[in-house]
């Protein structure tokens, strides 16, 4: 591949920056363009930081994008794809991003890999690593068609330090709104960004009362970290807005402390790359 064009998209600016790191890694070796796509409603004021990390930033800001739907968003993104003809499309694998990547892959009839944690350049080709079998394994994969769509798990790459001076270009496109109506929105308390902290204290089912989370908060505060929950505490009891593990947040802090966490493989998959894992448990035989 010579002169590769990489298009990056995420609904979150901070995750776009993580994609910029990966895009830079590839363009540094192969030379090429790193382009960012920003689509949504009321977002055009927030894209300045992206121009410092990408060669070009395309912005599609429209009230018609107020209601999120992956197929609508993929169709809008398709306009930028047609315009820039990328070889690689990086999308951060959030719940929205993963679905947009998938829909785009169907629209373009090209391959897409989700749950990606690492991308390596081997003989000018990309070897893409993703979690496999519920996080138990790692799969090395290759996309055989172009463009290659890669959905990267948040937290897999750090923020970039490279400073660019990209151009921002606003695009107007026709948007076919989905025949879906939003009846109600109930915001979750947006907790601490778990995948950005060096220390994460995670509460598991062994924590019996919601009040006891305060002890964990105190510990996290001393260590300069944040508190998260395992899946049952978040999904079943609603103590935390999201959980650590598969289908929740993947973290790799310097220090992970699991309190009363039994260590289902889906949870382990989300913490495997932590530097130090400390588990506090009444049962020394638990999987964690």
């Amino acid at each position, binding site marked *: 591949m010579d002169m590769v064009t990489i298009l990056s998209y995420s609904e979150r600016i901070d995750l776009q920056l993580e994609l910029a790191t990966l895009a830079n890694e590839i363009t540094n070796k192969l030379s090429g363009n790193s382009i960012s796509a920003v689509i949504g409603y009321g977002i055009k004021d927030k894209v300045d930081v992206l121009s410092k990390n990408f060669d070009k930033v395309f912005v599609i800001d429209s009230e018609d994008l107020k209601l999120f739907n992956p197929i609508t968003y993929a169709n809008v993104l398709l306009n930028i794809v047609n315009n820039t003809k990328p070889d690689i499309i990086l999308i951060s694998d959030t719940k929205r991003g993963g*679905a947009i990547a998938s829909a785009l892959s169907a629209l373009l009839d090209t391959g897409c890999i989700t749950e990606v944690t690492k991308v390596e350049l081997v003989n000018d080709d990309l070897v893409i690593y993703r979690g496999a079998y519920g996080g138990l394994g790692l799969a090395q994969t*290759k996309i055989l068609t172009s463009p290659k769509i890669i959905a990267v798990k948040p937290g897999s790459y750090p923020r970039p330090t490279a400073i660019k001076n990209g151009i921002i270009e606003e695009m107007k496109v026709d948007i076919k709104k989905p025949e879906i109506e939003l009846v109600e929105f109930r915001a*979750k308390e947006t907790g601490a960004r778990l995948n950005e902290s060096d220390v994460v204290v995670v509460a598991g089912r062994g924590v019996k009362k919601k009040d006891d989370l305060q002890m964990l908060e105190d510990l996290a505060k001393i260590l300069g970290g944040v508190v998260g929950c395992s899946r049952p505490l978040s999904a079943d009891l609603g103590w935390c807005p999201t959980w650590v593990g598969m289908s929740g947040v993947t973290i790799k802090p310097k220090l992970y402390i699991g309190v009363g966490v039994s260590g289902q493989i889906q949870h382990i998959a989300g913490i495997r790359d932590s530097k130090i894992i400390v588990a506090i448990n009444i049962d020394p035989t638990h999987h964690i």
Partner: protein
Amino acid sequence: MPNIIVCVKQSYDVQQLRYDKVSKQFLLAEAPKKMSDTDRRAVEEALRIREKYGGKVIILTVGNQDSIDAIRQAYAMGADEGYAIIDKDYENFDTNNVAMILAQAIRKMGNFDLVLCGAESTDGYSRQVPVKVAVYLGLPFINFVRELRLEGNYVIATSDYEDGLYIYRVKMPAIVAVTLDINEPRTPTPSAILRASRKPITQWTLKDIGVDGVKVHFKVLNTYVPEVRRKRIILDASTDDKIVNAVQKLIDALRQERII
């Protein structure tokens, strides 16, 4: 009286998946399979809708001969009809292929109001197939649904996203992908299991649904168990008098690792 098609996948039971300690390769040939956990909830949800509003629950799967078992399991839970598209090359199919085949089969079946899928499979976990089916069918799609009800010709679905719950209203026909939280699926009784095994399953080939062949878009080079070396230090704090000592040792160890 909605007709609901539920797309299911017979997956490797990852909880029982073992690997070779030396080669780090998974022992797939001996691995037990089961219907994906979220798909099972999609079946359960369809059955609950039928119990409330009437209609039919029709199961659809793409796979090899093993996949028939997913339909049997759905029958044991109470599903009405089952269709399996069987192909010997199934193991090589990618998500585009599977979604396209499902969409073709759904077109051929016709006469449906709602398609339910699990948002992700237990083994593959790519979350790609449901939205792709919607793209291929050109129907509205709602993802990560943890609550579902019908209102006349409309589906009211609660989508669970990172920032909050979005309650959508969409006219049927539509495609809905459900999460693990939507319900607790029933465990079938012996008599239901026995009845299920006597119920016919319609088997189609790719040709039967008008698919000439598939183009593969990506391939898996290798799947293995990544090695993580851990020190595995166990500190005993099982009694009050041991706690102080254990905590001190933990602090010392973390200092040594330059964590604190």
